[in-house]
């Protein structure tokens, strides 16, 4: 233990924090041994990017965009980034055997989290690739007899885009609408299924609004009608309990960086009994049972496996923690502000995702005002354009409310203090923006905004 502490001390000196940026020579920093890393005074904590100044790293409340890696995951990955660097497909030497062992162990950990067998887990580069593989692969394999695919209007862009790709190649696609609370209507789904439907794809937990679709009911319906059920579970795996057998799921997409694992890796679950066949989208040496060629990045696979095993162990604790924080956030904001609407069903939801619309406030100005809190409005995939989110539009949220939506993402590492501070800052900024808003003034005076005739200048 003493050795580790001494090593840590020496290493900190090497890192050169305390040497300051003025001393150019390495020798200077070697001579200056500090007991603690001296964090720079005020100047060092100011970060200037994109024309704004930030004091210190912002609080991270955007867990749906990505999650920080759990230190236990980093710990599991590092040996495979340093000394155990073999290619898992090398059959002739220790390096390959070690790497293969690690990949297979990871496969088992992933299967364990969702109730699947190791033979049913294929590593991919992420949930986007898994979704592409599931939709294009299954549709193309069964295209002689089955020409129809069903999905929802609120599914992830990669699912919708894959369906559009299929439409361009002669397939029929039904995009199921959702109710005002974001859930699909099971009767509508039953009606939409045709004799030539190959699969239904419904995401488990929505990344923008956090609603949880009734997976077990959808799975039961699909099993009865002999249609494959695929779910994009990127935001669900490791957060809510998933059992592919109990829920009759045939295909499932997993994303590493949504469950405190590394970015750049994911997996797809493909049922073997009854067998789901699909056409591989990546041609090559036949790795991953011929379904996904390419060297499996063993250190990323280990990271994903470890993240899954940690999630299985911590799920109950994390759910309780996230629910507590979520109530604190929602009650904190709604007790101090009027005109706040929660987008999506208030019961069938994952509590780590709180998407709120603030009436009479402009979304972008609120985001800019909340620069000390890292949140997002709409999903990362659609925020490049100025269009309001298609998910909120599918819910029937009006344009002005859709534009003011903010998504707060809470997770394992979020603290109560951060939530309290986020509530404080949000209330402050919303009040400030509303004070400047003539619409708000009119509402306070009792004028009905909808009855105003806006004149052209």
């Amino acid at each position, binding site marked *: 233990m003493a050795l580790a502490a001494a090593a*840590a001390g020496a290493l900190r000196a090497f890192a050169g924090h305390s040497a300051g940026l003025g001393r150019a020579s390495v020798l200077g920093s070697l001579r200056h041994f500090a007991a603690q*890393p001296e964090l720079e005074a005020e100047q060092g*904590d100011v970060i200037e990017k994109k024309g704004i100044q930030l004091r*210190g790293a912002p609080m991270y409340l955007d867990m749906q965009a990505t999650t920080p890696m759990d*230190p236990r995951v980093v710990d599991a990955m590092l040996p495979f980034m340093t000394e155990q660097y073999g290619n898992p497909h090398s059959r002739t030497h220790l390096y390959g055997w070690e790497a293969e062992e690690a990949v297979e162990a990871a496969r088992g950990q992933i299967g364990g989290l969702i109730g699947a067998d190791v033979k049913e887990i294929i590593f991919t580069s992420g949930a986007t690739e898994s979704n592409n593989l599931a939709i294009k692969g299954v549709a193309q394999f069964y295209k002689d007899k089955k020409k129809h695919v069903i999905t929802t209007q609120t599914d992830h862009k990669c699912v919708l885009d894959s369906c559009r790709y299929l439409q361009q190649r002669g397939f029929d696609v039904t995009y199921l609408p959702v109710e005002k609370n974001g859930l699909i209507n099971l009767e509508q789904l039953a009606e939409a299924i045709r004799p030539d439907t190959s699969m239904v794809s419904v995401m488990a937990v929505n990344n923008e609004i956090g609603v949880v679709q009734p997976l077990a009911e959808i799975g039961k319906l699909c099993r009865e009608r002999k249609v494959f059920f695929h779910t994009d579970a990127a935001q669900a795996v490791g957060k809510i309990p998933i059992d592919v057998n109990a829920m009759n799921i045939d295909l499932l997409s997993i994303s590493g960086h949504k469950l405190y694992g590394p970015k750049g890796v994911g997996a797809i679950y493909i049922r073997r009994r009854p067998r789901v066949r699909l056409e591989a989208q990546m041609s090559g040496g036949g790795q991953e049972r011929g379904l996904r060629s390419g060297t499996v990045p063993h250190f990323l696979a280990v990271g994903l496996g470890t993240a899954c095993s940690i999630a299985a162990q911590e799920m109950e604790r994390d759910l309780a923690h996230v629910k507590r924080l979520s109530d604190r956030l929602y009650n904190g904001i709604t007790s101090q502000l009027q005109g706040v609407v929660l987008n999506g069903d208030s019961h069938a939801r994952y509590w780590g995702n709180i998407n709120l619309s603030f009436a009479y406030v402009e979304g972008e100005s609120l985001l800019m005002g909340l620069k000390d809190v890292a949140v997002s409005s709409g999903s990362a995939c659609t925020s490049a354009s100025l269009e309001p989110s298609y998910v909120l539009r599918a819910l029937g949220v009006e344009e002005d409310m859709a534009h003011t939506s903010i998504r707060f993402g809470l997770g394992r590492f979020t*603290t109560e203090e951060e939530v309290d501070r986020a509530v404080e800052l949000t209330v402050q900024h919303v009040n400030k923006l509303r004070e400047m808003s003539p619409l708000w003034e009119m509402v306070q005076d009792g004028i009905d905004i909808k009855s105003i005739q806006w004149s052209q200048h």
Partner: protein
Amino acid sequence: MPSAAEARALYRAFLRSSQHFGTSYNIKEYVKRRARDGFRDAAAVSDPAELARLWGAGRAQLEVARRQAIVYDLFSHKHKHAMDLLHQRKP
């Protein structure tokens, strides 16, 4: 089988490791919270086999925490986290 003093020493070791981890306010707080919750739940366990397993798991996790505390320190930001600055400002 660990004594009560050894268990307390293990808990303190986790809390000490949480002082490093670079500028990662969230990880530091998580280590403290998770250790507190873990030890609190383990205090209610009476089955000796389970206790032995928990003790082994705790020792292993401490090694992970110590290693990663150093790694995060090595690659940390030069600026603090906003919450740490907030704590500094309020006397």
